């Protein structure tokens, strides 16, 4: 059920990104797909995040007739990494989604640049550096509503399990 819900959420986010956000030049730097994916990964863990990232990347690469696998690779790693962060240290921390989005926005931008450079495509580092601050700000602004919505759709699993998990050893 969670898988189908995540697929639907990320599909809608990808459509919104492709058909709406890219129409407005200032929003080209932002990525609602990345924010939605990281929110899902934080709430559902690393494996879920990696699979969701792979699927979303494939969808974006297909819809834009880009080189298949490029966005998949980046989003798989991003989903897995933030999923692990969610599983280990980020539980119940208010700053976790914001920190995740900020760090991944920066790393994703330069990883995309590096991958394009390796593939022999145009990779002007100055463009990424100039757009980074705007991307960071917009993604952080998107984080609050997107994470709140996704948290509603995917309630944290650990809350139900916490009481049952406490056991006395001594």
């Amino acid at each position: 059920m969670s898988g189908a819900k995540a697929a639907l959420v990320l599909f809608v986010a990808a459509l919104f990104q492709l058909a709406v956000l890219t129409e407005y030049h200032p929003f080209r730097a932002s990525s609602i797909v990345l924010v939605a994916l990281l929110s899902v990964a934080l709430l559902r863990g690393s494996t879920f995040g990696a699979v969701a990232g792979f699927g979303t990347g494939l969808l974006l690469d297909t819809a834009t007739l880009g080189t298949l696998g490029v966005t998949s690779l980046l989003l798989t790693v991003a989903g897995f990494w933030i999923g692990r962060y969610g599983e280990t240290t980020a539980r119940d921390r208010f700053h976790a989604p914001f920190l995740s989005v900020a760090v991944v926005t920066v790393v994703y931008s330069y990883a995309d640049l590096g991958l394009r450079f390796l593939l022999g495509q145009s990779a002007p580092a100055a463009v990424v550096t100039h757009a980074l601050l705007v991307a960071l700000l917009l993604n952080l602004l998107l984080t609050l509503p997107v994470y709140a919505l996704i948290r509603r759709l995917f309630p944290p699993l650990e809350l139900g399990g916490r009481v049952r998990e406490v056991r006395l050893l001594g």
Partner: protein
Amino acid sequence: MARLAQSVPRNRTVRFAVLGNSVQRAAAPGYPSSRSSAVKRRIIVGGLVLLSLVLITVSFRSSALDGVQGTVAGALRPFEIAADRVSRPFRDAAGWAHGLASAKSDNRKLRTQVQTLQQQLIQDEGAVNENVQLKAQLNYHGPPSLQRFRRVSAAVLANPLTALDESITIAAGSDDGVKNGNVVITPQGLVGTVDKSRGSISRVTLLTDAQSAVTATDLTNPAAVGVVRRGGGGSDVLVFDRVPKAPYVGIGDTVITAGSVSRALPSLFPHGIPIGTVSSTSGNDINIFQTIQVEPFVNFATLQSVIVLVPKR
């Protein structure tokens, strides 16, 4: 349960653990943390990364996946159109509000422009008629013009996704006769070339991409021939490069595509597509070429529809 709550406070400290009240919280059920789960997790992620690398290799080196990609992209098109239609009223409202704010000053500016252009039109019509007559008399064969191309109009499905991306996706593909390398324009000027063409959609590499370049000439001074390409740095400015110092290019001159008459290496671009106006020129004693910046006619950030030029058979 109540006794457990009394003996083990929620905010227990290290001191409690040392004193023997050892309580261990196991991982939540949603986050598998056993050794087998960790191995499973690594296998899944490793597999996905490997699959991504295989996809990159196959997609980059061959066209084996092009058919599948085209079919899936075609299947996604109705969803993209639906999303576009849903968002259009909001976009129109924003455009209307923006237009209202600048309507008065725009109106004044446009009225002045219309008067100037009307005078220019009369002069140009005379020149065009004279040009046609002279060409016929001389049996002149020039570079291919726009008349040799069929025009395929297409909506823009997706503008560039990221700051690095300098390509758009359009709703016309090989089914409409569009092929790789076809030139894409708007009524304002040159946009770019078709990079990938599938069933009903195509990807267009914009002129602002670092790998795009077009042979161009100055409309006022046709002897000034050079290459228009993206300038360095992070800006979207175009430069008119490789123009010798001798034929002077002035600020405000119109730059158009040069085309070519060579049959061995014909230019993809027909002659006479407007590119932009010269915004600045400079030069120094060391450089044998002028440094010319061009302000493009096309606003690459807000493309809604384009025209693909398909050569007539």
